[in-house]
């Protein structure tokens, strides 16, 4: 007897369903079901995932959804037999969801009118006397109605099915067998119980309400169904399934039409825009090779019908340009000549040869990928533009499905099993979740805290099962879906947690799998800083500066980077990148592309870094197995560094088909969630062996694939990032004051604090002036010394933490041209409240008005007198008898850090050193000149402790003193013996040996001691284990 399951929820009905959509599809196929309807509650969120798997397994999947209405007892399931029904269902879900806060819905019977014409209705009544009344109403609306019979093996089964038979006779409608499936196999029952306990908030040990009494809501084998249901009820399932012929493959994305003028087609319009762009980009005429590539690209775009996608992005970028918002495209299609001509990217095709075809592959059928980064402070303007232009019906953000990760899975599972929350907290703290070698389960077991009796013994296995289960929908960082008509025709739209934001029920993988395009509107702090620096350059040199005006390939810029002087520079400022610079010694733009991509988990785990560095020393010795390999790897000296290279190697060397390569790419992208690439391993190794490559090379490549997973860094992105690396490095090299000023005005961004940036810039010769009510603007700005042209940075009032923005503006706006003369004058002119005045005193901004901060604050705290019309002489001395003690240097420093987060006074370490408390300690700058392997002692403020997942057991500590930063490496054994100073010290003293490699200096720690008592009260926070 054949069967189609028509009522089945997945784990995208959050905390009710206990199986992934793909598991349900696989099981239905294995059991030989004719079809499976996925009917998550008021949701189509699982449809795309189920569809992908069903397409692969050739199982008929029916789109549907389950509802509990406000004014209808029982459960209603609506199925979509056609494209129109899908749209109607999607609109109904949207209506129910948009009425309520995130995660909820409300619908009434009247709302069903949307679906009356199109959907198939199945109803499980509430088994009360009103059933026939409601049934009549449903039947009148939908034309036909089917009653859902279930056999959960409950006591009331027979009674209810008799009732249904009776009701069916009364309503003259058929009964259909359904499973009300919550899990694909019975064995999921413990997990089903667990999510019920999580949902209801009562632990299993305290008798959770709503638990299912048995494990019968699973996909049952057909013979069993035959025993449980009369044949005609089972047959009815097939009748319904036969009516459903809609597949998600039918969804077509129609791009907004308004971007194309009436007398053009998308193709001719794109060509027109590109032609215009050519004249702008290549004023001396387009080189022949570029021209040819352009034609090739346009033909490719036309053959795939992607013109509207390029036009949509062009429209958004054009808006940004007109509003003076800096932006930069990246991604597979972004570095094409077409995008260069449209101004989507600044990466000049003459400087880097990235074939569009490498990224948009006709045979692989992947959609093009263009992410556009905008200034982080102004991205909202772009988002609002999109909403304004297309309307909220037509533009919505893609969702991100937030899933259980090990920590949250353990916490929730622990709570549901009734474990003491503090105990669970003890278990999860201190686990290194990233460490793949030593996975968290082993770490947890090693702690020895977990009981192997009672509910606790199920914790790990259940948390493992829960891992990757969806928890809720959140909004994607910036992926927009823009449609020609209503987005809800395609997919339901629901409210996000953020006000005025709506998200669709599919995430970016779902969209990609269905071939629907999204436009990524992302934000990047460095773009904000760059625009600000360019504006400051315009102030200084005149003219309007753009990215294109920055001179290219300046040797001075590369010289600076080769020395590892990269603090503040985009992407290459992290500690790991900084130490790689002197080893890689970038000399040209493409070296920067490599540099950006090489310090990533992929190349590091694949052990590709060292071979690459070696080959750079001796490029001539590089040999290639054959020309095909050479074509893939020549640009990186035979070492695969980019994600694209790995995929192409799989095709060229291991014989992957285009389709398999696409699966590999998807699996790599999804690896973080599912963590399984093992299916590809064998194929890769065998394929490469049979093509004459060593197993070792193949294994290396496989490890690299694992490393790319989740952190994938393709060449197409690296190329765009490298451009910003170069531009920001150029600014640091040639306009250091403007660069510092722009960075400070764009905080928070980047890797370093304002304090570290200022210290670094001062060491490199930038003059920085303190905050002062008589000189500072609201923001940081440049001050020009009349004698010479080198500007200095004047810190702005915005740096004073406790000062309100409004007060800062008032101080600047009401400042007389001669400046404020006394605190009294400041008070009556600005009429600031006490908190703001104190903040100014605390930030040392009254330095030109009062003797010192202590006195300034005492003066300011004086209760306001009957003051003073503005014309009363402001030079009256304050009526104070008490004289405050003058601040000590340490007081000033302390207050600087407390109220500004940085100080221009002597560094705390200089202060302590001056007191003779750090004898025998050398400074950071002299360590760099020290001989290798010599014992040294150093001391510094701990500004960072890192335990990277890629370096097992090693802790990297960054120390800061008055001359710079020190890198300390603490091996695991050393760390174990000296946990206390390592974990607690804010001022750390280290005895160790100097190690130098390729110009990078480390100190290998021997003995650690905590000197924090010397800086007690100094408000310096360590950035622990970020």
């Amino acid at each position, binding site marked *: 007897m054949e069967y189609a399951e028509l009522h089945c929820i997945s784990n995208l009905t959050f905390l009710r369903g206990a199986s992934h959509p793909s598991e349900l599809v696989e099981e239905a196929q294995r059991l030989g079901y004719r079809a499976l309807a996925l009917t998550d509650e008021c949701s189509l969120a699982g449809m795309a995932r189920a569809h992908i798997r069903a397409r692969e397994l050739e199982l008929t999947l029916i789109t549907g959804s389950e509802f509990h209405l406000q004014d209808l007892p029982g459960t209603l399931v609506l199925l979509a037999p056609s494209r129109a029904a899908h749209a109607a269902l999607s609109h109904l879900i949207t209506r129910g969801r948009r009425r309520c806060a995130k995660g909820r819905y409300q619908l009434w019977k009247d709302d069903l009118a949307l679906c009356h014409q199109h959907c198939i209705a199945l109803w499980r009544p509430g088994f009360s006397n009103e059933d026939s009344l409601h049934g009549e109403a449903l039947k009148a609306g939908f034309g036909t109605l089917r009653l859902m019979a279930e056999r959960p*093996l*409950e*006591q*009331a*089964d*027979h009674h209810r099915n008799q009732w249904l038979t009776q009701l069916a006779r009364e309503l003259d409608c058929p009964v259909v067998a359904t499973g009300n499936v919550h899990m694909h196999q019975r064995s999921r*029952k*413990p997990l089903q*119980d667990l999510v019920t306990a999580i949902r209801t908030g009562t632990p*299993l*040990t305290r*008798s*959770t*309400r*709503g*638990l299912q*009494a*048995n*494990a*019968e809501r699973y996909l049952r084998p057909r013979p069993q169904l035959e025993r449980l249901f009369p044949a005609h009820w089972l047959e009815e399932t097939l009748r319904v399934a036969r009516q459903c012929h809609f597949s998600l493959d039918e969804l077509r994305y129609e791009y907004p039409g308004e971007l194309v003028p009436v007398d053009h087609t998308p193709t001719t319009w794109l060509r027109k825009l590109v032609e215009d762009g050519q004249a702008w980009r290549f004023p001396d005429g387009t080189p022949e090779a570029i021209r040819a590539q352009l034609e090739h690209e346009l033909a490719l775009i036309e053959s795939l019908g992607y013109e509207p996608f390029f036009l949509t992005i062009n429209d958004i970028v054009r808006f940004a340009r007109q509003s003076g918002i800096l932006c930069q495209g990246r991604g597979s299609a972004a570095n094409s000549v077409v995008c260069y001509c449209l101004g989507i990217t600044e990466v000049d095709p003459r400087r880097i040869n990235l074939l569009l075809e490498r990224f948009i592959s006709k045979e692989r059928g992947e959609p093009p990928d263009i992410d556009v980064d905008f200034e982080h402070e102004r991205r909202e303007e772009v988002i609002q533009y999109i909403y304004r232009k297309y309307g909220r019906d037509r533009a919505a953000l893609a969702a991100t499905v937030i899933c259980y990760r090990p920590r949250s899975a353990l916490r929730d599972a622990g709570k549901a*099993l009734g474990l003491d929350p*503090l105990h669970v*907290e*003890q278990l999860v*703290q*201190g686990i290194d979740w990233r460490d793949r070698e030593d996975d968290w389960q082993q770490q947890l077991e090693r702690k020895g805290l977990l009981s192997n009796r*009672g*509910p606790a013994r*199920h914790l790990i296995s259940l948390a493992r099962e829960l891992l990757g289960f969806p928890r809720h929908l959140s909004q994607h960082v910036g992926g927009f879906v823009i449609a020609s008509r209503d987005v809800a025709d395609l997919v339901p739209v629901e409210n996000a947690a953020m006000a005025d934001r709506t998200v669709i029920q599919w995430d970016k993988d779902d969209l990609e799998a269905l071939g629907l395009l999204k436009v990524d509107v992302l934000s990047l702090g460095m773009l904000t800083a760059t625009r600000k620096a360019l504006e400051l350059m315009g102030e200084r040199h005149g003219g309007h500066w753009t990215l294109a005006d920055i001179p290219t390939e300046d040797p001075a810029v590369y010289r600076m980077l080769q020395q590892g002087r990269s603090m503040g520079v985009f992407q290459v400022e992290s500690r790991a990148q900084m130490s790689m610079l002197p080893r890689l010694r970038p000399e040209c733009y493409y070296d920067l592309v490599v540099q950006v991509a090489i310090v990533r988990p992929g190349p590091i785990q694949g052990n590709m870094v060292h071979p690459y560095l070696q080959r750079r020393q001796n490029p001539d010795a590089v040999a290639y197995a054959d020309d095909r390999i050479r074509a893939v790897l020549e640009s990186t000296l035979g070492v695969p560094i980019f994600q694209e290279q790995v995929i192409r190697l799989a095709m060229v060397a291991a014989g992957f088909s285009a389709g398999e390569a696409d699966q590999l790419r998807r699996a790599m992208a999804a690896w973080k969630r599912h963590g399984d690439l093992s299916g590809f391993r064998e194929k890769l190794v065998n394929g490469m062996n049979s093509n004459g490559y060593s197993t070792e090379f193949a294994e290396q490549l496989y490890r690299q694939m694992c490393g790319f997973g989740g952190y994938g860094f393709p060449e197409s992105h690296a190329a765009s990032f490298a451009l910003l690396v170069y531009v920001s490095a150029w600014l640091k090299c040639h306009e250091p004051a403007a660069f510092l000023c722009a960075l400070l005005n764009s905080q928070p961004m980047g890797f370093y604090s304002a304090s570290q940036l200022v210290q670094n810039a001062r060491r490199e010769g930038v003059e920085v002036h303190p905050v002062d009510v008589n000189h500072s603007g609201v923001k940081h700005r440049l001050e020009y010394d009349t004698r010479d042209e080198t500007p200095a940075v004047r810190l702005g009032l915005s740096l004073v933490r406790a000062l309100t923005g409004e007060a800062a503006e008032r101080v600047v706006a009401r400042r007389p041209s001669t400046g404020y003369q006394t605190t009294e004058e400041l008070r009556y002119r600005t009429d600031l409240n006490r908190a703001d005045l*104190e903040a100014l*005193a*605390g930030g040392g901004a009254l330095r030109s008005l009062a003797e010192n*901060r*202590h006195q300034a*604050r*005492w003066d300011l*705290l*004086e*209760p306001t007198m009957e003051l003073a019309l503005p014309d009363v002489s402001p030079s009256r001395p304050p009526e*104070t*008898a*008490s004289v*405050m*003690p*003058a*601040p000590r240097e340490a*007081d000033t420093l302390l*207050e600087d850090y407390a109220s500004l987060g940085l100080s221009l006074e002597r560094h705390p370490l200089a202060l302590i050193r001056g007191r003779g408390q750090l004898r025998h300690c050398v400074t950071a700058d002299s360590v760099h000149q020290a001989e290798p392997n010599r014992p040294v002692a150093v001391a510094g403020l701990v500004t960072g402790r890192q335990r990277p997942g890629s370096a097992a057991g090693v802790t990297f500590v960054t120390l800061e003193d008055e001359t710079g930063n020190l890198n300390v490496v603490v091996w695991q054994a050393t760390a174990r013996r000296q*946990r*206390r100073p390592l*974990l*607690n010290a804010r001022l750390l003293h280290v005895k160790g040996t100097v190690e130098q490699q390729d110009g990078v200096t480390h100190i290998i720690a021997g003995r650690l001691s905590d000197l924090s008592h010397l800086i007690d009260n100094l408000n310096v926070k360590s950035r622990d284990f970020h």
Partner: protein
Amino acid sequence: MLWLYIHFPLMLADHYRTRTAGAPVALTRGTPPVVTQACSDAHRAGVQPGQSLATAQGLCPELNLFPFRERAQTRVLEQLATAMYRFLSPLTLWEPDGLLTQADQLGQLYESLEALTGCITRELRGMGFHCRPATGTTPRMARLLARHSGFCSEDGPALMKATRALPVTATDWPASVKQRLNQMGLHTLGDLLNCCSNELASRLGPELQEDLQRILGKRAEPLDEFHPPDRFHQYAELPQETRSVDRLRFPLEHLFRALEHFLREHQYACGRIRVTLHHPDRPATPLELRTARQEYQAEAFLELALLHLNAMKLEDDVQALSIDVSHLVSRDREATDLFGNNRTRNEALAALLHRLRARLGADSIHQPGSRADPRPEKALRWRQPGASPDSTETGPIRPVWLQQPPIPLREPPHRWLNGPERIQGGWWDGDYVRRDYYIAVLASGRCAWLYRNHQRQWFIHGWFG
């Protein structure tokens, strides 16, 4: 006047320490939890307030963690006060972690101040508590010195000097005030006292000024004297030795009247009374009375006591009676009618429960309830009598009489009425069941609840009426 203040720097940690057989202890607070207090051993290992649990356990792997609770803190302080009451009186509780007493009154009992503080410290150490005593010419001075570093002296000027040297951070003032003072270079109390007091008050508010005056003794410190909770004890000699319960009735009633009077006076009630029967030449017989609810009326106690006495056999002459009540609770005002009568239906029920308990024993009375567990044998829960009933959702039909343990079914049923109902669950506590239940009529005509287990064996699990 000289005041003595005893500060307990690790009060709660010390308290929990007594429970962990000496293993190191830290208290945690907040989400995510951080350490707020660490015992001395944990402290020696590097555990400090403000650390995350990961850091703390990294430093001290055998650390025991307890959540910080303010209620517990108050209770521990009360216990300490009760314990110290023998030595120190008058005594004042100073939340959250200190005790105050007058040293000059006590000084007469001890040779010297050192002898006194030494005795206190030893006593407390014996109880497992760290303490830090300090003296002061005002209560607040003693408290500040004790909380900061401890300083004991009878010399007024020396105490004043120590007080002036105290950092402002040692005070209880709001953090914002302390910060503001530090930011004006006023780091010690001495710095503050050097300032013109009016200027100080006008800038930092009158509260600070008042506090300074309390420290200096220019303003009175309101103090509440601590009294340990009351007990009730009364002893009554019988006019004549007796073995007859009837003869005990009157003296008992007399004692209970006195108890009722005491309870009324103090608005107390109690639930546990110890009655002791004293014999001429044998050890006394204790009798523990427990009421179903907190009581104060003599009739209730008497009735209960007589029931107990009637149930036991008096084998020795009783010479005297005494009653002791050590656990007293404050009584909520109950409505009484015009005649002082407040017996309601609930009270009648309570009275019935008293009597049943006295007859059958306290552990014999339970109230049935249900819990949402699919397993029938776990769905019943016995609760304290008097609890509110469970919600009565209409579930599947269940027999009133559950056959526990189930008995094997020996005969094929006469007629099947319902089934199967599958019940499967309980993996979480190790009592996993998977059974198919049926309702059937047996040959005897009885209606039984049957199940078949996973091994296809049949059992009777209950009987329907």
